[in-house]
Structures are given as C-alpha cells and as structure tokens.
C-alpha cells in the first residue's frame, strides 16, 4: 500500500514542485490542512546547518534553522518546502504530516544531484527503499541496481541473476514479480554479459522494493514489485562519464529554457573488448559476435504551468551475442545466437490543484527476443505493447467519519501484439529438471500472431480511523483478454501506531499474474496464476535515521501453470500442454534494520523462507526451485571528505536442485536421456562472502573525478552454485562462484 509518505526530495531550484515519481503509481495528493512540520538540515557530512531559510513554496512564510539545523513551521500537507542556503544547492521537500528527518544540502559546486532523505514509511510491511547515493555506496554491487537488489530482505541471493528480471522474491518465480521503471513494466532488467542493469544507477532517483502486499495500482504480478524511478535533469548543465572493465557511459543533463529539463544517458559494454583476450586458444570457441550491449535513456521534464507537468521518457537496450562452439565458424550445428532488445517510450502528464491530482500516461514498448541454437532451434518473438493509463486522486481532511482521507481511482489498458516464430523443444517449467539437450528437437512449433488485450480498473480509499489507526481498502479488477478472465483482487492494509516508536501493519490481498511468460503465451486456455498474501509487520523507529522492521508472511498460490502430472520416469516428455493445476505456499520472516546518519549508512537484513509446490493434484509436495531458507546481508559504508569506504558481508543457503541418477542412451538420436531423483531433493551448500568498496573523489580543473574499486568476495570463498553433468549423467562437476571479482572504474563529472 502506498500511504502518505514522509519524503524530502533534494532537487533543483527551477522546479515548482518536488518531483514525485512521474507516471508511477501516484502519491496521494494532500488536503489543505496545515500541520506542524519539523526536520533538520545537514550537509553532506551530516553536520547541522544553521541559518538555512525554509519556506513554503508559493508563499512568503519562512523560518530559519537553529544551531542544530532544526526547524518547525506550519504547512499544508502536500506543500513543497524550499530550503535555501548560501553556497548550497536549493532543495525541496514535500510535507506529509510526519517529521521530515534529515534534509541533506549539497554544495553548489558538487553538480546536480538528487537524493532522497528523511525516510518514508515503507510502501508495505517489509518493503524498503534505496536512493541513488545508497545504491552506489553498497559494496559488492558495483553501484549496480541488479546487485543492489540482493541486499533486500526476501530476495533470493545468488551469484548469478535468475530469469529476465533477476529477482526472486519471497519464494516466487522471477516472472511472478514485476520490474517497473517510471511506473511501466520493463521486460528485461539486466544485460546478458556482466549482469549489469539496463539502466545505470546514476540515472535513478529511487529504488522501491515491495516484496508483497502491494497497492491496487500495481498488478499483473503475484509476488513482488521492484519500482525504479528515474530522475529529471535538473537546472544546471552537467555531464558525467564513467568507464570500467564492464562498460562505459555518458550522462548529460541540464535545463532547456526556463521550464524544461533534460537528461540523456548512453552506455556501451567494454567487456567485449576484454573478453576475447581472456579465452584460451585451447577452447573450441569462435566468438562470431563478441557479447556486447548498448543502453540509452532520454528524459525530458517540462513544467507547463503551476498545475501541469509533462514528461517524456525513453529507455532502450540492445544485447547481442553469437558464438560457435568450434574453431570452424561455419559449423552451424554448433552456433548459439541471442539478441534481446527493447525500447520503451512514455509520455506522461501530472495535474495537481488543491485536493485533486491526476496522473496520465501513455507508454509504447517495442521488444524483440531472438534465440537460435544449432541449425534447427530458434525463436523470434517481437512484442509491440501500448499502455494508456490514468489515475485520479482526491484528498479530504474529513470524509465519512475518517480523517486525512485519500481516494484514488485509476484505469489502464495494455494491448500487446506478439509476432512469434519458433521451433523449440518443450520448455521445462519451474521444478522440472533440465531435459536432454537435443539440438534437433523442435517439438514446439509456432508461427503466428497473438494479441493480449488486457484491461484493468482500480480504486482505493485510505483514511485515519482515529489517531493511531490508518487503514486502506481497495480493489483491482483485471480483465485478461486472451484468457477471457476477470480477476477481482481485493486488497487492504491496517496500520496501528501502538506506542512510539512502535507501529504494527497488517496487509492482505489477492494477486493475479496473467499467462504471458514464454510458452504460456501460446496456450489459449490458460488462466492467470493466483496468490493470496498475508503480511504482518512490526516497525520500530527509536530515533531519526534508525529503523528496524520485522515482518512475517504467508502466501498461498493456486492455479500455477505447470505441465501437470510428470511423465513416467525414464520417458521423454511428449505432452507439451500447460495446465493451471499447480499449488504452492511460501512462508517466511524478514528483518531489516537500517541506519542513515551523518557519514554512516548501515544495512542489516535477514530472511527466512520456506517455499513448496505441488505440480498437480495427487503429486507429492516438493521444494520450490529457488527456495532459500536463510539469507543474511550486513552492509555499512562511511563517507568522509573525499573518501567513501564500505563493506558487505553476506551468507545464504544454497538452492535446491534435482540430482541425476544416470541415463538411457538413445542410439538413433545419439543423446543420453537423463534419469532424475525426486525434484529438488538435494541442496547446494551455504555460501558466504565479504565485499569491499572504496571511492575517492578529487578535482582536476573543472572536472570532478571519482575513482572506485569494488571487490567482491575478498577472501576468495568459492562455493557451489549448481552442478553440471557430463554427457551421460554419470559424473557431475560443481559450477562454483567466482573466487574474486574486482571492479575498477573512473567517473568524471563536469
């Protein structure tokens, strides 16, 4: 649930309003009620700033901070506060009714930077948020979003990302969670090589991680949400370049006229220049097209007038990779080719006046996925998807016996057109072991067009029942056109402030994921997968900057898409049909403690999870493929002057896998058909590692340079990720984590 948040956005002077995430599920608009608002203004080192002028935008009301940097003033909820101080960038914050926490002012010479400080309550019990600075400071992540996600409680930790989103949340498959950028889904979060996110952390304002219990404005997911919000360009021209052994990129930003800001980012892999030199001559490999990627971003913000703001956002990425597993480049039977690219264009408009707020968005996604293996197997999937969306928010100080009321209602249409040409073997589902690799197997064939016209409407009301209880109730109705299925999903949350600094939150709701992942799209009769989530959270905030939250969850999953009852042992699967016969449960608990104060940033998360599945009625219960009972992440970073130092320690359980017992040799096909033990009946061993990161900044003329060294797995612990089997499944070899991964880079800002 999104509830009124305590958000302070430090941004540029030219914006009339603080920038909430454009086109993302909107924040509630404020009522005109005035509330006492407190906070503290500090510099980058956490030192309180005295004499900072704090005013309400659009009025002459103004106060000044005291020696401790503190201020108190009365302001309407939803109003923007302006912070002005000599030699510092002007900043903005949004009044929400709660203390604003620390407002960090940046030196004017530091270039345009956006930070989010003053912690907002999590979007749901167990949810968490990281801002850009924190994303870049977490050691072991290389400043990358994908790796930063692994510190989140409830996210399965592994040395390699899983699925296209790379995010396995609370015992659910990667496709059960959605990754949104500026409110719209992106099909791929990371590049094939280097496992880097498709958008650099420098262009991100915030990362919201909602592992469950999310708001009615989010949908098409049965597990969690990862929502990235890009940042506007600011009112000062600036440029930034960064290069490392993995990739290099440029970002340019600034104003265009008095009401417009732009941000342009371009990045290209550099690992493809390094990789060929690392492959020994003895390996039978021809890198016909060295793995490489591009990604780009354009964001333009325009303030039309006091009420309307407009946005254009473009995000694109292109990964390509081709190799021949032979020195003979014309050995087409040994060729592997993969290309994944997409471009999303979004135009948005936000209206705000008094008690009314409206968010309008129109987004076009163009995506292509090409995969070719040997001479016969291939898939070429082109998706064109158009998504118009509108959400209206109305606030009221009092209504129907409630106070501080927020009512939201919205609608969205998502029409997808898939042009698919494929010839592939039957795709294994979650829990099914890898079948025999037969490059001639093209038992799944399709060449045609599939339309997925989906419609959704939602509405929700949030209000205070009394001074200690705030509740949200809402409903979302999805109509999945291909399946001709109407999915009504009620959701709600109650938040009780037990006694300062304790708060308790209980959320529950129904969630649906439509059948649109890989081969599901070929089946007309599949229905959506369902989950019922219940989450109980306790939050403890003894003082500003320090927060601990403990949450427990239980998720019941039904209508899971499976192949139904498995074929008899030893036989090849011949039935490719998918059915909604699976069931599953996930139960777990999570602890997240964060500290943000002065030069320190600390993070401690621990997750316990147990997730099981039953593939068809009468089938035995088995472990979920990504079941990870224990995961602990402890990270801290410290910033002083030109130096930033950080470390992260992680320890987590290995994942289950299905061991092979042997094989039967099919002489005519010249392949070995594996025989497996019970699904997921073994587990890889526990893994632990320490990561360290150091950044140092300095000036060289007009350029501000930052060099960084990010070392993963400092003490070179190797552990088993999974196992590879030999050709006849009589031997296996561990695929181990990489012993040490140093990343070194240089960033320049003009």
């Amino acid at each position, binding site marked *: 649930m999104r509830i009124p948040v305590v958000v302070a956005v430090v941004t540029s002077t030219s914006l009339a309003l603080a920038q909430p995430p454009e086109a993302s599920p909107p924040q509630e608009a404020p009522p005109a009620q005035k509330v006492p608002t407190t906070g503290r203004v500090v510099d980058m080192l956490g030192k309180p700033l005295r004499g900072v002028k704090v005013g309400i935008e659009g009025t002459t009301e103004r106060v000044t901070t005291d020696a401790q940097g503190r201020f108190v003033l009365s302001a309407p909820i939803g109003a923007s506060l302006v912070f002005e101080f000599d030699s510092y960038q002007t900043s903005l914050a949004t009044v929400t009714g709660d203390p604003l926490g620390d407002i960090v002012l940046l030196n004017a010479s530091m270039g345009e930077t956006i930070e989010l400080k003053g912690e907002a309550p999590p979007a749901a019990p167990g949810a968490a948020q990281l801002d850009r600075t924190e994303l870049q400071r977490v050691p072991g992540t290389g400043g990358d979003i994908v790796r930063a996600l692994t510190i989140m409680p409830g996210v399965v930790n592994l040395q390699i990302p899983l699925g296209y989103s790379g995010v396995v949340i609370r015992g659910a498959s990667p496709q059960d969670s959605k990754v949104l950028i500026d409110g719209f889904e992106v099909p791929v979060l990371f590049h094939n090589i280097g496992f880097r996110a498709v958008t650099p952390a420098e262009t991100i304002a915030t990362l919201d991680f909602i592992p469950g219990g999310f708001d009615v404005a989010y949908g098409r997911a049965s597990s969690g949400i990862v929502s990235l919000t890009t940042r506007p360009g600011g009112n000062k021209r600036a440029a930034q370049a960064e290069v490392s052994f993995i990739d290099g990129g440029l970002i340019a930003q600034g104003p265009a006229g008095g009401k417009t800001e732009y941000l342009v980012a371009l990045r290209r892999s550099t690992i493809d220049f390094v990789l060929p030199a690392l492959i020994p001559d003895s390996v039978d490999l021809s890198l016909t097209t060295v793995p490489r990627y591009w990604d780009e971003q354009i964001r333009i913000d325009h303030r039309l007038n006091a009420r309307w703001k407009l946005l254009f956002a473009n995000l694109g990425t292109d990964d390509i990779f081709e190799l021949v597993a032979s020195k003979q480049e014309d050995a087409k*039977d040994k060729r592997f080719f993969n290309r994944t690219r997409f471009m999303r264009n979004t135009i948005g408009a936000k209206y705000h006046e008094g008690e009314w707020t409206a968010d309008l968005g129109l987004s076009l996604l163009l995506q292509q996925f090409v995969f070719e293996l040997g001479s016969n197997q291939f898939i070429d999937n082109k998706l064109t998807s158009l998504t118009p969306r509108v959400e209206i928010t109305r606030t009221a100080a009092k209504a129907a016996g409630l106070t501080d009321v927020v009512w939201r209602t919205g609608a969205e249409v998502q029409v997808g057109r898939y042009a698919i040409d494929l010839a592939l073997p039957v795709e294994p589902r979650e829990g099914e072991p890898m079948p025999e690799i037969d490059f001639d197997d093209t038992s799944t064939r399709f060449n045609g067009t599939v339309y997925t016209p989906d419609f959704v409407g939602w509405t929700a009301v949030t209000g205070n029942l009394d001074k200690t209880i705030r509740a949200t109730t809402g409903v979302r109705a999805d109509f999945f056109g291909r399946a001709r299925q109407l999915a009504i999903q009620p959701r709600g949350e109650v938040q009780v402030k037990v006694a300062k600094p304790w708060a308790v939150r209980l959320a529950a709701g129904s969630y649906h994921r439509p059948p649109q992942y890989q081969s599901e799209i070929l089946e007309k009769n599949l229905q959506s997968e369902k989950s019922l989530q219940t989450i109980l959270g306790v939050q403890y905030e003894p003082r500003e900057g320090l927060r601990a939250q403990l949450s427990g969850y239980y998720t019941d999953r039904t209508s899971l898409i499976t192949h139904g009852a498995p074929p008899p042992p030893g036989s090849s699967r011949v039935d490719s049909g998918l059915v909604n016969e699976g069931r599953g449960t996930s139960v777990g608990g999570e602890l997240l403690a964060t500290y943000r104060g002065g030069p320190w940033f600390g993070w401690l998360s621990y997750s316990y999870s147990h997730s099981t599945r039953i593939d068809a009625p009468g089938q035995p219960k088995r472990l979920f493929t990504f079941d990870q009972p224990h995961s602990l992440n402890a990270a801290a970073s410290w910033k002083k002057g030109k130096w930033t130092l950080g470390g992260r320690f992680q320890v987590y359980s290995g994942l289950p896998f299905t061991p092979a017992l*042997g094989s039967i040799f099919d*002489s005519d096909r010249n392949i070995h058909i594996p025989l497996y033990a019970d699904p997921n009946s073994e587990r890889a061993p526990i893994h632990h590692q320490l990561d360290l990161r150091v950044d140092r900044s300095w000036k060289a003329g007009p350029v501000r340079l930052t060099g960084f060294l990010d070392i993963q797995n400092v003490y070179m612990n190797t552990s088993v990720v999974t196992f*590879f089997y*030999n050709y006849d499944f009589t031997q296996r*070899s561990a695929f181990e984590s990489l012993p040490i991964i140093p990343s070194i880079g240089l960033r320049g800002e003009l």
Partner: protein
Amino acid sequence: MRLLILAALVGCGGDLDQPWDLDHDRIVAIRANPPAILSGETSEIDGLVAAKGALTMERSPDQVIVAKPESLASALTFDNGKWIVTAPDEAALDAARTELGLEAGASVPLQLGVAYGETLFGLKSVALGNTAPNPVLGVMRIDGSEAPAPTTEIVVGKLVDVPLLVEANEDDDVNWLTSCGTMHDFDLPSAYLRVEVEDLTEGELAVVLRDPTGGVTWQVWPIRAE
C-alpha cells in the same frame, strides 16, 4: 536455462569425461543390421561398447526387450547368442500402426530397450515394413593420409593437431571418439586430435556415422602417440 545450454554447447564441465572419450564405460552405438526390414526379413542387434581401461568391443547386448509397440513383442528373439528382430506380416504391422496412431503403409518403429551389464542402458529402433541398409563409411583421412585398415595402428605426434576427416552427408551425424588424446570438434566431419602432455598415449580412435533413418556404422583403430 540459457546458461546451462550454453555451458553444454561449449563443453563446460571441469574434469568430466567428455562425449568423445572412449576411456569410459558407455554404449557408443547400437546397430540394427539392417535398420529397416520388410515382413519376413530379419535384423540382428549388436552394439559398440567402450569400457574404462579396456578396448571397445562389438558385441550382442546382454538383454533386449521390446519397449513398444507391445503387440510386436514376439518380433524379437534370442537365437544362438544373437538378438534377432523378424518383421511380422502386414496384418500385424497394420495392427501396430493402429496402436501407434500411424498412417497406413507407414513404417512401424519397433523400439527396443537394450542392456549391457547392469549399468548401461540404451534404446534402438528398427523400422518394420520398410527397407534400408546401414550407411557405409566413405573417404576417411587421418593426418592428411587415407585412413588405414581397422586393425592397423595409427601413430601420431604429441602436441600437434592431427586432422581427421570423414565424408558425410549434411544430414548425417558424425562422432569422432578417442581414448588417446583430446578430441576437438568431435561431432563434425572435420575434427582434429591433439595429444596433450597429460593425455594417455595409447588407446583407440573411432568414428561413428549415423544417418537420419536410424542407420549406423563405425570403425575403430588402435592409436599411439609418440
């Protein structure tokens, strides 16, 4: 999944025995001679079997059963130490076609389950109601010279690439296998062998050729590196 496929394609797997390795307990190929027979004709089942630390052998399976169709179980007999398939009459084949959902006149695949000892299991099909021979190995060249007779020892150098070539149609499936040296491009008609320092210096070299109709043939040579 893509990672696993890619790993399989490029042969990741540490110190695991490779698919070209003859120094490993395995069935290299199962042969029906001939692979397709008409009613009343017979086909003999045998195979090429490799063993760790021993030479490959052409021999009859220890056990063979009819996996499907069950109605043709009597087509298989064991006679004088040989497993023999005899194609039944057209009426029985028609019944089998009905059982398997095949069109009238289509050849009926008789799928056999084959066992060598208690650990090596395989599948082999014999096409009934049709006729076809096993393929014949064409031109073969080893280290630039015409391949010698099967019993003739091949001598190659150490730490040099020894090119191997066999004539094959585009649809044929070729495997080069060895227990002496490291094979490269083992599944291409044009492969090469290189005996590394850590490799065995004596063993066997084999080539197996399969055609798309289930026919198979092979040849094995003794080989030594010096």
